[in-house]
């Protein structure tokens, strides 16, 4: 295969994974922005999405019910975590980190106990092949990319055009003033946390036919979304989107030309240096 072919493959793979990362990272960014907390268990919502997808699709024999049922189940888990862990500690930054590390352990171990240490595949709901001049490519991956893009657009509509979005933006700007104007901030927090978890879960569901469900798959998702959120600038959803695509493309292109480990080393260092040069991220607000 020619250099152009390799480069195109790298860009394509990177673009697809970039959009999936964007979905997960958007969830983290939303929680980060609105609630000002670091949710270390965010990757576990991604993992739960994938595992529930396996469960529901093997229960019903079809992928489509899982696409709806898995994110809803994860939303319930998130709501419970918000109500019984995060709200009692009043979303204080450092206790939240410890508490969500605890939540991470609990969720991982529950999945290990009831689902087992296996990596299980789920059959893709659609098979077709797209032929490029250099290689054929899985059509399902392109559908995943398209769906992710669609969901991101829907999220943008929710944030900019709905009452919930308005409430969330108001709470993000100033929680107390928002409350004084009658915004039910506690419910906004719960909604933001659940919505963030749902986004991660959907990404998990979509990726299962490509990647298999495994109880440790959350950590990579967490690291990548962390990178996207910080590079994009905390509180900026646009920034997160751009950064996620940037990370996906770098990783994709590097993986085609170098060994995966070397590619990850270079990508990590690149991310670190971007942040050193622009500590507030590419699209960050001045305050943090």
């Amino acid at each position, binding site marked *: 295969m020619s250099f152009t072919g390799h480069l195109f493959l790298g860009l394509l793979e990177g673009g697809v994974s970039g959009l999936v990362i964007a979905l997960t990272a958007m969830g983290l960014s939303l929680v980060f922005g609105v609630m000002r907390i670091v949710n270390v268990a965010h990757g576990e919502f991604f993992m739960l999405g994938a595992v529930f997808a396996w469960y529901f699709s093997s229960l019903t024999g079809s992928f489509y019910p899982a696409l709806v049922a898995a994110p809803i189940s994860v939303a319930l888990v998130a709501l419970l975590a918000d109500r019984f862990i995060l709200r009692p*500690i009043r979303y204080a930054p450092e*206790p939240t980190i410890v*508490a969500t590390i605890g939540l991470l*352990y*609990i969720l991982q171990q529950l999945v290990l106990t009831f689902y087992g240490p296996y990596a299980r595949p789920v059959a893709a709901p659609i098979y077709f092949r797209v032929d490029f001049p250099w290689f054929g490519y899985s059509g399902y991956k392109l559908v995943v990319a398209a769906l992710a893009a669609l969901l991101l657009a829907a999220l943008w509509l929710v944030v900019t055009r709905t009452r919930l979005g308005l409430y969330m933006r108001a709470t993000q700007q100033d929680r107390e003033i928002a409350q004084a104007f009658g915004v039910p901030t506690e419910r906004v927090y719960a909604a933001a946390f659940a919505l963030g978890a749902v986004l991660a879960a959907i990404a998990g569901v979509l990726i299962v036919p490509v990647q298999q469900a495994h109880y440790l798959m959350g*950590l990579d998702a967490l690291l990548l979304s962390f990178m996207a959120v*910080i590079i994009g600038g905390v509180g900026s959803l646009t920034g997160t989107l751009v950064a996620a695509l940037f990370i996906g493309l770098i990783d994709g292109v590097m993986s085609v030309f170098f060994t995966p480990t070397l590619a990850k080393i270079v990508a990590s260092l690149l991310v670190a240096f971007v942040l*050193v040069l622009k*500590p507030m991220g590419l699209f960050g607000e001045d305050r943090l």
Partner: protein
Amino acid sequence: MTVRVQSGEGAALAHANRLVWGVHLAVAALLLLLQFVLPPFHHGMLARIMVLASYAIGYNLLLGYTGLMSLGHAMFFAAGMYGTGLTVYYLGFGALPAIVTGLLASIAVALVIGWITLRTTGVSFLIVTMMFAQAFFLATLYFNRITGGDQGLVLAGRLPPLHLGPLTLNLAQPGVKYNVALVVFTACVLLGLWLVRSPAGRVLVAIRENEERARLIGYNTFHYKWLTLTISGAVSGLAGSTYTLLFSYLGSSFASILYSIYPLLWTLVGGVGTIIGPLVGATMMTYVVDITSGYTTAYLIVVGAALVILIMRFPQGIMGAVRARWPQWVP
């Protein structure tokens, strides 16, 4: 997460000073005596805990006294570990020169990483340190022909006995292990205590409380933070180096993100900004893991639940809660 500055004049201050040093030395003396009464199993556990607590003390120097939260300390711990382990494995170094190379390796890494990362603060600092540590971890995997990668290297049988004057110490012996761990731990406690109570330590507290003002008064805040990060990295590296010598093993897992999270966890559980907090946190967490894994394979659920409950009941950590209730000279 405030450090209580001892107030009072003259005699009262001297008295408080003596009390603080006394309490810390009493903890060390208690650990010294414990080895004669503990059954062998707990004896070994405590040796390991003291090394891990030294690591957490190193971590806490940065977090507690500058307010910078790092998620990359595993790279300093691992630098000490590889600096020591690789020289023993390939060059046949003895324990003392190997500790020195481990220390030098971690100081070198901390100097470079600090110079780069201290341009950022807050969450950015957290992520930048995490990314550098991730690159370091992946590098230990990438060069697996030298480092042994995931499998790691076993030092058993390669480490010559340590000659200290008339003494010949075999680091594989439990009694020697315990006391070496105790010496390292005590050294780290005293270093931490001295640093915090030195004039430089006061400047650090000032920087943590209000960096702008400290700079306005004329302190070069970057240099102070750089110094603290280097000392913090060196103490973490010393812990890594000791761990390798005492437990004869080095591997990539010690450079992974989990080992960056651990000291943060121990520190938060024990109490930020206290010197003894990390020991309490490390002891608690190690024992909780050990006891629960005896009853169930799903012990991580218990660990997770313990963390959640602990942080809901004592958001300031255990020592923070103790200090709020009892006199402020509690370490």
